[in-house]
């Protein structure tokens, strides 16, 4: 071995040995910090009587996050320390905690330190050797690896006290680096006696943090021993929360949201992205700051051009009012998506939708070019936050609205099905700010506004069904016509329409569409087109079959005669209208000489509220106001009369919603009409009985039967 090689080998071995020793020291330090601290909350062994019948109780938990840039190095330290002490009251909890998975810590510059100990009711502590964890490997293009450990000797009545810590060193690759946001609900699966959230942000790192929905504020704590400061929240006595229908936890449960970022001087000076002073909490974002961040995000769009101005100039002869021209531009841009949509369809991939900021920038440019007054509108999805509680930019969504006098017309990012005026369901009714699109963005003056919310009369799913029975009355043939407007429409469009429906329709408004084949692949894509067309009808029928299986609680034959009479792709004819036929032999049941008909099942399966859901301690959030109408017409077979109509007449109406059903005989037909509606998007928990009343009334109706009695 020559000298150089010896030195190199020595260096390598010494480095590895030193690194291992350092890791071992750090592991000991963290063990001491987690298990040897004087924090009395992590010494508790008893749980309150009120929770002794719960499966598990979190005695204490600590989640600590630290971010800092290293001095003189382009490296960031991102650390998190998670410590849990859990009382396991039953076997279910033992099963939940008997196997714990965690990051393997051998990829990149991440080190993971873990510790697990079981505390027996008699106080005996059993420390689990972390080396017994096994590594689940994943290598390759979509690889990830993790470790898992089996906790030995775990029995009901034990306490499991464990920590999972990660210390990461990340190379700085951009001017500004945002770390993953954390939205932490203070009520979680199990009751919590004490919980602590701590955030330490140092040296060129920034912190956005806000307590919402009644969560305690975080306090700045000075640790004189370590000569450091951090933000801390101490909380406790929170009951567990069950999975619940119609709950937006981030709007209703006490929550802390947090996001740290690193920014270089150049980054801070160049981009307005809701950062405050280094190391100082930013817990409020002003309207002006929203304008600034919106401006920054628009500026980052690399390509914001569009061909609509040119097209309109040459081809548009329609009305010249703001709305009409904006509509024409929007539709043309949507039309331009067809080629990409066809390629993706042939590749068996999802249809494209325009990236939000690209849409905002390019459509605003179109409108500017046409000198059409418009606003850039920034809002937050209702389930995420109120606009007043926003603290980071990833919470934001954008729309454009065109102004015409005092009226507005909203535009959202294109897909081949979107129409002018449609506002994404999640943003309807949300508070927002608008910035004048014709004003230079650096001079934007935010205007507070509320986005329109479609009402139950806008979001209407109407189904009209005729039912004919076979001569032996055992088989029913159902002809269904659906007329879908509003928020439910995209679901139907994406299931039953495809790019070729859009092409056929656009061919009536634009020059005939011609597919531009991907480069040097015309033969392949021609073959794909043929294959797609061969399967197209079957694919649509299969999609419809799946929809029927989801909708109806009886076995259905394969549907036939799917006919789409209106695609809903135009704001002039906004409903999607289609019809189909299917049969079932599970609707009518022979009972002696008569026949029972499960007539209630024809209004599709209805959600119900179970006995264990009757008590509710959280408010109610519906995605939308909406309504569902059904008209069912049954040809009464000759020689039979109908009995049982009285139970089909019902009415529950209240401030939250309603369900009404009527039934009558007309010209040898039984006509049943039902109307269910959710009238609001929010109801306080005190309104829960009203929700239960109309929701369960609709569900009860699905169990109703009529009798076809031989005359």
């Amino acid at each position, binding site marked *: 071995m020559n000298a150089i090689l010896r030195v190199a080998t020595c260096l390598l071995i010494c480095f590895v040995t030193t690194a291992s020793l350092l890791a071992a020291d750090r592991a000991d330090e963290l063990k001491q910090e987690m298990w040897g601290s004087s924090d009395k909350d992590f010494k508790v062994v008893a749980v309150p009587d009120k929770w002794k019948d719960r499966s598990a109780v979190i005695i204490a938990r600590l989640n600590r996050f630290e971010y800092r840039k290293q001095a003189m190095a382009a490296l960031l330290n991102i650390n998190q320390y998670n410590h849990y002490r859990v009382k396991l009251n039953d076997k279910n909890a033992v099963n939940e905690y*008997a196997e714990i998975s965690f990051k393997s810590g051998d990829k990149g510059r991440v080190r993971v330190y873990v510790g697990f100990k079981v505390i027996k009711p008699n106080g005996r502590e059993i420390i689990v050797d972390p080396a017994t964890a096994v590594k689940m490997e994943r290598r390759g293009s*979509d690889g990830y690896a993790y470790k898992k450990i089996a906790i030995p000797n775990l029995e009901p009545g034990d306490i499991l006290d464990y920590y999972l810590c990660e210390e990461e060193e990340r190379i700085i690759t951009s001017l500004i680096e945002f770390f993953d946001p954390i939205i932490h609900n203070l009520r979680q699966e199990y009751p919590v006696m004490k919980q602590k959230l701590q955030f330490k942000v140092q040296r060129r790192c920034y912190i956005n943090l806000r307590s919402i929905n009644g969560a305690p504020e975080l306090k700045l704590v000075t640790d004189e021993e370590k000569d450091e400061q951090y933000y801390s929240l101490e909380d406790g006595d929170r009951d567990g929360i069950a999975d619940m229908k119609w709950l937006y936890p981030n709007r209703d449960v006490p929550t802390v949201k947090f996001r740290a970022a690193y920014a270089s001087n150049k980054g801070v000076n160049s981009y307005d992205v809701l950062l405050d002073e280094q190391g100082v909490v930013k817990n409020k974002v002003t309207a002006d700051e929203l304008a600034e961040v919106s401006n920054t995000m628009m500026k980052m769009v690399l390509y914001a051009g569009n061909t609509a101005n040119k097209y309109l100039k040459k081809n548009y002869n329609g009305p010249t009012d703001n709305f009409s021209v904006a509509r024409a531009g929007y539709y043309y841009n949507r039309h331009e998506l067809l080629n990409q949509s066809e390629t993706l369809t042939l590749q068996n991939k999802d249809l494209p939708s325009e990236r939000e900021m690209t849409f905002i920038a390019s459509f605003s440019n179109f409108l500017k070019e046409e000198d059409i007054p418009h606003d850039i509108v920034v809002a937050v999805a209702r389930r995420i936050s109120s606009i007043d509680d926003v603290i980071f930019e990833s919470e934001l969504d954008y729309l454009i609205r065109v102004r015409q006098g005092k009226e507005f017309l909203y535009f959202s990012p294109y897909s081949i099905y979107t129409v002018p005026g449609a506002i994404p369901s999640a943003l309807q009714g949300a508070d927002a700010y608008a910035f004048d699109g014709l004003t230079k963005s650096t001079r934007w003056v935010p205007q507070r506004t509320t986005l329109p919310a479609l009402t139950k009369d806008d979001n209407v799913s109407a189904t009209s069904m005729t039912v004919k029975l076979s001569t032996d009355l055992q088989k029913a043939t159902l002809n269904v016509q659906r007329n879908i407007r509003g928020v439910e429409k995209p679901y139907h469009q994406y299931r039953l329409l495809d790019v070729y429906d859009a092409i056929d329709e656009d061919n009536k408004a634009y020059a005939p569409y011609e597919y531009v084949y991907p480069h040097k692949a015309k033969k392949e894509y021609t073959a794909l087109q043929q294959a797609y067309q061969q399967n197209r009808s079957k694919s649509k029928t299969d999609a419809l079959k799946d929809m029927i299986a989801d909708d109806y609680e009886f076995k259905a034959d394969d549907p036939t005669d799917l006919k789409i009479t209106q695609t809903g792709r135009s704001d002039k004819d906004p409903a999607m209208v289609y019809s189909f036929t299917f049969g079932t032999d599970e609707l009518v049941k022979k009972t002696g000489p008569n026949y029972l008909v499960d007539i209630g099942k024809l209004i599709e399966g209805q959600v119900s509220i179970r006995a264990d859901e009757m008590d509710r301690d959280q408010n109610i959030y519906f995605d939308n106001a909406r309504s569902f109408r059904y008209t069912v017409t049954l040809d009464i077979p000759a020689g039979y009369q109908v009995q049982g109509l009285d139970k089909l007449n019902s009415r529950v109406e209240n401030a939250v919603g309603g369900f009404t059903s009527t039934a009558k005989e007309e010209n040898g037909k039984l006509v049943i009409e039902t109307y269910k509606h959710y009238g609001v998007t929010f109801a306080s928990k005190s309104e829960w009985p009203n929700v239960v009343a109309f929701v369960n009334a609709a569900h009860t109706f699905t169990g109703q039967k009529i009798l076809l009695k031989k005359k």
Partner: protein
Amino acid sequence: MHLSIHRLHIAGKNAVLAVAMLLLPVLATAQKNTNAERAAALRARFKDAKLASYGYRSEYTFDIRNSTLQATLKEQLDIISLDGSVTYNRPVFYNDNITVGDTEVNYASGKSVPVSKTCGNYEVEDVFYSDAKVCAYKFFLLSPGTEVTFTSRETYTDTRYLTKIFFHDELPVEERTITFSIPNSATVEFIEKNFEGYGITRTVTPDGSRKLYRYTAKDLKAMKGEPHSLGPLHNYPHLVVISKDFTASNVKTNVIASVDDLYKWYASLVKEVKNDQAPLKAEVARLTATAKTPEEKIKAIYYWVQDNIKYIAFEDGIAGLKPDAAQNVYNNRYGDCKGMANLTKEMLKIAGFDARITWIGTNRIPYGYEVPSLAVDNHMICTVAVGDKQYILDATEKYIALGMHGERIQGKEMLIENGDKFIVKKVPVAGADQNLILQEESLVLEGDLLRGQGAMTIHGESKKNILYMSTNIRQEDQHKLFDNLVVPDYTNADQVKVTNTPPVDREKAMEIKYTYGLTNKVTRFDSELYIDVDWNKAFKNLKMEDERQSDYYFNRKINTKVTKKLTLPKGYAVTHLPKGLRKNSDDFSILVSFEQKGSELLYTNQVIIHHGRIKKSDFATWNAAIQELNEVYNDQVVLTKQN
């Protein structure tokens, strides 16, 4: 609940480039790589398949290396896409005894197909950790009719681990060949299973100092798992490979030539286990302190292991066959079947019993010990003899009573250790009566409300499962489990109440007493009441699909009996009773009856599935019976008000 939402990428991304990349997945599929005629022919043959194989060749070459009989496997799978834009992920499995060699995916032109490869642990249900690994090769075929050949190579470093080979694949296969090149100095046999009806041909030809075995099958549909199936070994054709022996340097070495060899090897692994009884002694003494009879002692130990050792399986390398030491399992309070069997044995030995390790295959494996292969067993239990009586103890069966045996091992051969020898014996088979579920209810009408009280008595497998569920569900949810057991799917307008706390007693039938008031079982039409007396409607619509390949297995033998006694309301007469049903076959019997006795209506519903399964050959008989049963269930009792 931490919620991550998307990050703003300040560095930005080249959206135009991204779109361009999106549009150009793989354009290397020149027309010469497609075969429209073959695609059309296979599309007609294998309906709804997006891919098919028109040739699948597995070549096993056995060689003696390092004093071991080894085998290399080269597989060539000729794949054709029957649809456009198909993504396929081809797995290649390996473990400590199988190494993976080079893998290639090439177009018909010979040009390689872009492949994304991911390798890692293969996670098997119920196994915490094993040496099973998989490499997944993902590739995209754009044009319909594209032909590619997937070639993989593996080496079995010891052919005792090469046990079963299926002819079917997850893709439909037009022609499948499996060849074995065996040196004359080795003895390897092939047991052919489930060949009937598949027209599989076999040739044996000399090849120098070797023999070449060639099996060929044609037109094989895609292999698929079916719910309620005993698994593919029961119906798919396959070969069991028996590597018996080999001779090298004039020395003959047995691999596994007979069940003696299998036992000797198993026993040698058990011998290596370093059991230490010391940590167990106090526990055994505590458990058996008050036991008066040998049977009570065995119960005390057996039940303690069932209740206290959680099933967590490590099957890493030889740990897949060798039990963990008893003291480890005891201290960890977890283990797999082998660990539990070994712990049970050691604890029983401390208590003075002659307990033995016992190997067994569950009912997923349709072989007995006439097949000398690792493929014959997949489970380990403990047996103990007391005088003439033998107890079979499977501590993985939680809440099973001594003397009862899990459905999955009944009738199966056990390989019981016996020093240098072994004993082969069968686990007794219990009848369907052992799994009786009896439900007896009395019903009265209060207006349109059907009020009832009842008792449900559960024996056997179901009792064992319910005890496990009820003790492992969250304690705050336990009452919901029992309420839903006695009246499934009740609404919040109904009242259902279990009135006793069913004791956790594995030795007695579980009895659940309850009352209910149900709102939607009676429909009033003028002067008539239509009553749905049986809302469980057991087995309704359970028709077997024509395309099902395997027998339908219910996981247990079934004997359910429901009797209901409805007191007729005053002033009403029965004007219609459903006709009832009586069906009997070798597989099952169904009895449903409605009978009026004075002022009471008696309803009986008893279904017995004698062996817990419906054979595929009996599907037509079963479906006809279910059709009639559906008609009975659709019918209702009608009471008419008398003037």
